[in-house]
């Protein structure tokens, strides 16, 4: 009986609320990556010919990737087509493509032009969940972080379709990380769904008993936001994201004087 009750309880959270929507077969998929561009921040993307990994590596000369850039409100402002090197890594300086945006942050996606037949035959879609790096204050090292969501697809008519799902119920994403100071944390969140989303960022005492601060933002589709959280050395805190997104996994930037770290929730 208890097991049935638990199944029923879970069903309320799972019924018709997938992590992401099923894309059209054959459509390339991408995460919605966050770019930052300012006097302090530079963004880089590691472009590789993913489809070429599945096929004869001498055949990739005609393949390319198309990058679509959006501002923090999800408005498109730039597209760029880039050719692949054959089994090569290209570290793309994203900042060179986003200088036309009035916003210092935004999102972008990367679609591969060629889908290997072997991938389609498996009923799968080729995904770019790639690797980003951020440079802070011209540091000699960049901080790397991977993408992790099938957020958006490119349809055959070249229109974009968001794949992020939203829930009937309000969900919490409780970052399992202790925020320690002195540092400025910036909790970055993207809206991969087709509707505007209200996202709250609650800063809690380490025990979780006290809400120290709450910030809200209304996010447009494809838009993003950074919640600043300043942490004192004497009071480590934790963070909870609340929204109707099925999984509001944030990207976290931590800066302290000249140093930076970046990681996914």
């Amino acid at each position, binding site marked *: 009986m208890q097991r049935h009750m638990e199944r029923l*309880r879970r069903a309320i959270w799972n019924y018709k609320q997938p992590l992401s929507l099923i894309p059209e077969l054959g459509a390339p998929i991408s995460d919605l990556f966050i770019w930052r561009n300012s006097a302090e921040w530079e963004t880089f993307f590691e472009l590789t010919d993913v489809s070429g*990994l599945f096929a004869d590596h001498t055949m990739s000369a005609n393949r390319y990737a198309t990058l679509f850039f959006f501002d923090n409100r999800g408005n498109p402002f730039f597209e760029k087509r880039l050719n692949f090197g054959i089994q090569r890594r290209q570290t793309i300086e994203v900042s060179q493509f986003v200088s036309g945006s009035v916003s210092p942050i935004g999102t972008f996606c990367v679609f591969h032009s060629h889908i290997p037949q072997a991938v389609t035959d498996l009923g799968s879609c080729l995904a770019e969940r790639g690797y980003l790096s951020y440079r802070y204050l011209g540091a000699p090292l960049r901080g790397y972080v991977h993408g992790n969501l099938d957020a958006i697809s490119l349809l055959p008519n070249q229109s974009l379709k968001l794949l992020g799902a939203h829930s009937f119920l309000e969900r919490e994403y*409780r970052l399992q990380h202790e925020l320690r100071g002195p540092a400025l944390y910036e909790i970055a969140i993207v809206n991969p769904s087709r509707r505007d989303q209200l996202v709250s960022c609650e800063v809690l005492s380490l025990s979780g008993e006290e809400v120290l601060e709450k910030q809200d933002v209304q996010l447009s589709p494809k838009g993003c936001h950074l919640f600043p959280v300043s942490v004192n050395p004497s009071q480590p805190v934790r963070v909870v994201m609340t929204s109707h997104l099925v999984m509001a996994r944030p990207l976290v930037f931590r800066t302290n004087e000249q140093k930076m770290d970046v990681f996914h929730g």
Partner: protein
Amino acid sequence: MSYYPILNAPGCIGWTTICNFSPNNWEVRHITEKYLNVTWCQEGTWRSKNIGTLSPDKTHTVGIADIASLVPAESLPLLSLTNSILPARSDILPHTDTERTNYPAWRAALGLSTAHASTSYQGEIDPFPAPGSLLTFSPFIQFGEGVENYLIFLNVEASAVTRSARLEIYDSARPELLKRTVDVCNNSAAVISLDDLGFSPTDLPVIISKEMSAIPLYLSRTRDGEYLSLEHTHPPASYVVHGKRWEAQKLLKTLWFSRVTR
């Protein structure tokens, strides 16, 4: 719940912050006080020691120095939270009897620090099947004066019986040329320098083991310890979504394993 390793790397101190609260508000309803354990593999046996308890909603950080008197320096310490005390010795990695979540997985902060900088990622590890295999393409190597790059080959298997495997490093554009082989062991975190292999900024290294699975972590650091970067690559199944993803991974492994053995 999974296990949570404490990492180690040259010039860095490892630490792990473990949490006794659920990562969401719907998969786990009631959180109870749990035992905090450290488990490690020594002389062909899993050894576990309870090192405290963790109340609901609490976090706790365990540094490598905190368990140095228990765990030999060459062993990989694995933290866990359990409802019951783990056996002091066992042939098979003990099952953790605590809650699991999927959206997201129940994670810990796995970090490396120097006197000047700190880096971490949210991670966990579950035992890999043995024998397994690894195929990973890494665009993480960084270049510059005083920059060092390491692969941390993180493996845990259920069996405590020590076995080794061969790790091979190639340039994906020239897979016929083997750049390096390294012997790695199960239930450990082997640290392998990637700096003296002649890779350039446009090379895409491919790292292969036909005998052992692992989480491939990449650490970059400046020699003075002022700057650090840590991240892992995706498994090949992540290059596709939906459909038979694991078949896609198998296809990629078959293709690349045959390329490097031509």
